[in-house]
């Protein structure tokens, strides 16, 4: 367990794992660790919510268990399930064996050996150290599943009718993420530390691109971040996130681009924008040339 006694320690450890967190996020993580509460991250797609859990797993040096939520997810696919084929097989074996089936009763069928462990169960009863549990896109799940999570998030325990209550020996670090497609119930959020992850500032995004794409030319890196920040000010349907900025930087690196031109920008626009109307809006409005011109006017190397 690394030394995480101060907020600065959290920031430093995360930066060591290539995640640059601002102080408010580091404070939220620090409080989660100290108060032993889950972290609820909300924000636009592509701002690095899932990456927080991945980075924390690396910081704590524990495995990451991920539960991807979807509409219709239920406790059987999230927590545990009885292995019915195995149970039926056990019944058949008992019947065919010389021993009489009196030895077979309901208790013997509902043992741990017939249990199929799903991500939540594995997070509470791990074989090694307590993992980082990522419950991704909780807003996609149903209200019933949210209610089911309440016991786990507050008590770190689960109740299996046949086996009783199982409590985590060591509390896992839980991260819940949401894209805010719907409001998650207050009862669930009350049990968590909430943090809204916004788009980063220019300086922070530049540091992120520098860290993740070190091979890119310094001036080109600045241009990439500046253009992405500029695009976010446009009334687009889907604004480019940090993930798209990194993808674009990688794309420009792969194309061995040395300087941004309107042609290169137009050709690689699909990496940044994923909506036809958005692309049309940028292309038709002469926005590309205008933004490149703004870049050049800001560039001191261009006379």
């Amino acid at each position, binding site marked *: 367990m690394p030394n995480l006694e101060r*907020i600065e320690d959290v920031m430093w450890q995360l930066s060591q794992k290539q995640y640059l967190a601002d*102080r*408010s996020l580091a*404070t*939220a993580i*620090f*409080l989660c660790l*100290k*108060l032993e509460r889950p972290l609820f991250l*909300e924000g636009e797609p592509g701002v690095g919510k899932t990456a927080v859990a991945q980075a924390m797993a690396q910081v704590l040096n524990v495995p990451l268990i991920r539960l991807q939520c979807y*509409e*219709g997810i*239920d406790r*059987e*696919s999230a927590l545990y399930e*009885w292995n*019915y084929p195995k*149970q*039926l097989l056990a*019944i058949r074996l008992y019947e065919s064996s010389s021993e009489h*089936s009196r030895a077979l009763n*309901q208790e013997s*069928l509902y043992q741990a050996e017939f249990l199929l462990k799903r991500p939540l169960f594995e997070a509470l009863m791990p074989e090694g150290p307590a993992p980082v549990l990522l419950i991704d896109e909780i807003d996609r799940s149903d209200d019933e599943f949210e209610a089911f999570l309440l016991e786990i998030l507050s008590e770190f325990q689960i109740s299996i009718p046949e086996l009783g209550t199982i409590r985590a020996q060591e509390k896992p670090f839980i991260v819940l993420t949401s*894209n*805010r*497609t*719907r*409001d998650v119930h*207050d009862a669930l*959020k*009350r049990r968590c*530390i*909430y*943090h*809204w992850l916004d788009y980063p500032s220019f300086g922070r995004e530049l540091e992120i691109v520098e860290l993740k794409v070190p091979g890119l030319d310094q001036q080109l890196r600045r241009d990439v971040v500046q253009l992405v920040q500029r695009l976010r000010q446009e009334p687009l*349907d889907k604004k480019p996130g940090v993930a798209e900025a990194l993808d674009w930087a990688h794309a420009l690196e792969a194309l061995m681009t040395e300087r941004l031109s309107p042609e290169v920008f137009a050709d690689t626009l699909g990496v940044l924008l994923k909506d036809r*109307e958005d692309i049309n809006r940028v292309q038709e409005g002469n926005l590309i040339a205008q933004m490149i011109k703004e870049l050049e006017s800001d560039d001191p190397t261009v006379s």
Partner: protein
Amino acid sequence: MTLLSRNLWVLARSLRSWGFTLSVADLKDAQSALLLTKDYSFSGVHDVLEGLWVRSYDQKCIFDKAFALWAREFMGEPLMIKPPSWFSQLPKKIKTQRRVVWVSKEETKKMATQAQETLWTSTHTASSEEVLSDQSDTGMPALHFWQSPRHYRHGYRKRPAQKGRIWNVPKTLRKSLSSGELIKWYYSARRPRWRPTVFLWDVSQSMAPFIPMFFGFFYRLSEIGERVDVWGFSTQLTHLSPRWRHPNPLLAYQELFRQVPDLGGGTRLEHTLLTFYSQSKPRLKHATDIILITDGYESGDCAELEAVLSRIRRHCHRLNWWNPWYLTPQYEIATKAGKILRHYCSVQKAGTIENCLHAWSQLA
């Protein structure tokens, strides 16, 4: 009570009046968290309180504003030196006044714009005469009991099964254990799920005669538990569903006139749809049905109406247009907005409660 906890308490009480659900436990949590972080700078306190007290993006906007005002009182002073000057100036508690608001009226107005229920799309509102003229109309129909078909959709099927049925393995196993032999397979009942439906209801002057009828229809739908979300629009968009929690329909109907400031005003369909789409896009699910109730009149130039309708249609399951005048003799869709709506929506007649029920049953 320490000075810090007293200040936090006042901030929490103020936030409560803006819809924050903060209990004593939250205050204790905040204090213990501050002891852990040992960072009593404004940003440090802000980060801690935000993490513990804020539970949504809308709350974050209000919290940031309120915290800035709260912190302004301490500007240049350490947070724990003395009680804030404004604390003693709080008005004495009046029995009839339940809200504790310590921000100024100007700030109150600014923060109120961020409340969830109403989205102000423009500064234009109906005149008081228009509102009064509509208030004089008390033609609220009696809400007869009627059985409407449920708006279900098929549940998510976990396992494939032959003949379209799902095995209930636990029940089969349980029964077989009690009977001693595997004889009979049991099947799960199909789990019905409500299909979310969003109504965009035109409450402008031209649709004023239909307001009581549609209100009765929506009220009844809400009463029987249908998952409907109703937005009224004329010159601005107003979220109406929360108003109907009143158990008395007549009082709820009166409340409607109080809450919708532009009821019976002009029609800004394009502006409304643009605002609805930009605000609700993350919340729109592909299973949602969107019903647009309007006569197709638009006071604007419809420059972006086609584009926004195309987008909304791609984000929902069905986009229907309920037109009260549709299929009536000597009526034809002649307006530009109406023609665009007919192209993107499936048009249904909804001039009477029977028409509405028929259209609803087609959705179910």
